């Protein structure tokens, strides 16, 4: 019994190892005979199919001749037969195509269905995307608000996703040295603010995708996406007008609309690099640039707040995307 079991195990192991090599065998082995050269039976036997099978190789002058094959029975030449028409001309001479018709058909434009960008490299439908990133401010020369963030998307289709996004700014705001220089030189101060966090629900749409060849040596795929969302951004003023009396402790969330544009470069089916521009649009609360005359009023927090301008905070985000599950299968071959 044991020896039978060992033999069975050995056979199983050999079969397991051999299965993936079957495809390789085609490479080194004999080139398969095209089906047209003799049909399935002929391909299997290595001989051309006998006359009378469905497929006949008519263009191959080097095709081996079957000595047993009967020569095709050629009907006697009919001097009245139309050379270009075949049987239809015998049945209905009026339907017989003329040479001019054939030329017109040959010149007719064919609307071939050729795709400039074939099969999308990485399908997204039904997958989750996690996109951690680092962000820097693009449009604030007074205070920069670098951040670490995370976007999580679920792709409803290959071009549309819903998701959430969050940024952590706390402890990363940088008051530019230029503010101090300007205040000292001109005695004019610019109200400044700092950020703590932001969160938003968003949708993402992919209108553009394509592929690039690098030095014509390798290819990578990319897509361009647009996003929109709404959420909250927590900010507070930095006391620069009257820092002796004013101290802004709490961060207040403001309604924050997000719009953005991004580029995603796929390294493989589940890993990509992303570069995104995101505009946070919100109503900011600035410090008042007016300092009351009396000490009592100066220490009254109600006098500390000033304008509420519509503010755009544009940030550039550089990150990576991981798609889950890692794999997917095409349902169509193209």
């Amino acid at each position, binding site marked *: 019994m044991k020896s039978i079991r060992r033999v069975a195990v050995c056979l199983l192991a050999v079969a397991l190892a051999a299965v993936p090599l079957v495809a390789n065998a085609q490479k080194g082995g004999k080139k398969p005979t095209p089906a047209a050269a003799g049909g399935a039976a002929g391909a299997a036997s290595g001989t051309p199919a006998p006359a009378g099978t469905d497929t006949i190789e008519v263009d191959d002058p080097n095709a081996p001749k079957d000595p047993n094959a009967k020569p095709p029975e050629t009907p006697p030449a009919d001097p009245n037969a139309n050379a270009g028409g075949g049987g239809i001309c015998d049945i209905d001479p009026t339907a017989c195509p003329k040479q001019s018709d054939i030329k017109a058909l040959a010149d007719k434009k064919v609307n071939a269905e050729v795709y400039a960008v074939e099969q999308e490299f990485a399908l997204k439908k039904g997958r989750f995307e996690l996109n951690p990133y680092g962000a820097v401010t693009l449009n*604030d*020369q007074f205070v920069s608000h670098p951040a670490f963030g995370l976007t999580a998307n679920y792709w409803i289709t290959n071009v549309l996703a819903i998701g959430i996004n969050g940024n952590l700014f706390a402890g990363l705001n940088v008051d530019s040295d230029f503010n101090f220089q300007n205040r000292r*030189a001109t005695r004019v101060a610019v109200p400044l603010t700092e950020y703590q966090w932001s969160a938003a629900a968003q949708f993402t749409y992919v*209108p553009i995708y394509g*592929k690039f060849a690098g*030095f014509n040596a390798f*290819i990578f795929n990319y897509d361009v996406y647009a996003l929109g969302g709404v959420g909250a951004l927590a900010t507070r003023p930095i006391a620069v007008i009257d820092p002796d009396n004013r101290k802004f402790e709490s961060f207040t969330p403001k309604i924050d609309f997000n719009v953005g544009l991004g580029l995603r470069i796929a390294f493989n089916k589940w890993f990509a690099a992303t570069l995104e521009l995101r505009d946070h649009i919100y109503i900011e609360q600035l410090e008042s640039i007016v300092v009351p005359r009396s000490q009592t009023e100066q220490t009254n927090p109600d006098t500390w707040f000033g304008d509420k301008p519509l503010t755009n905070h544009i940030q550039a985000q550089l990150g990576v995307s991981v798609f889950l599950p890692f794999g997917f299968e095409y349902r169509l071959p193209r």
Partner: protein
Amino acid sequence: MSAENSVMKRHNLRSAARFVVAGIVALGVLGASRSAKAEEIQITGPLAGAPPVRKLRLQRQGRFEIAPSFSFTLLDEYRRTMVVGGSLTYNAFDWLGFGVWGGFGAIAPLTALSDNVNESSPRNTRTAVNVGRDFGAQVSKLTWMVVPQVQVAPFRGKLAIFGKLFVDTDLYLHLGLGFHGLDERADCDGGGCVGADKTMNSRVAISPNFGLGFKFYTNNLVNFGLEYRAFPFSWNRAGFDQRGGGNDGKFPDQKVNGDDQTFKFNQMISLSVGFALPAKPKLSE
């Protein structure tokens, strides 16, 4: 009983370990076979050694390109600059070109901060060195730029817009040495700095220029470009006395001179329309 149990457990553990090892070996064999298969196809398949793209339209190789452009600066503190200019490039290869980019600062509006300073800054002894009667007149200007440069286009492809419109595209990097004409507050010392009208002077700042851009080839002759350019150098953007004094030179010294030029990572975005000659590009193999 417990001894028997422990022997049984040991036996089961050994069997389980054997299965695990056998499983790992089998997976290794399978995995190795699969990766080997991919390698063999790459090396010996019918496409072995073939370029990833055949009959590629070489939009750059052997062609001259003239591209009028409009550029605007980013993150300006006191004055924005819009540069009208263009580039002339000869592309020796599809991935390498040589040329020159340049332009004039045609429009240079003040920022809101400059307007605010002009309106709100007190004119007294404390600000006399730094703020003149018309603050806008003392704010520096970028008047012209000339940049001999090389362009390297490592990435070439196409993009599909809404799956309907297809455009040849390339991504390129550019690197050059920039010559920048500046109108900047003239050097002054002591009483010469406190006049109501500040004197301006011209100078040329030399710095590296670098960045990247996209070109979208709508047809064989015309393309559209979007480019980012960085040109960092030090200059006194507002004409202030802000450096030169104190133990570390970081305090005002009642003089305006080269010490007051501070480093700025200048940046701009350019939009261009390019015309390439000869009008018909070559095709790759």
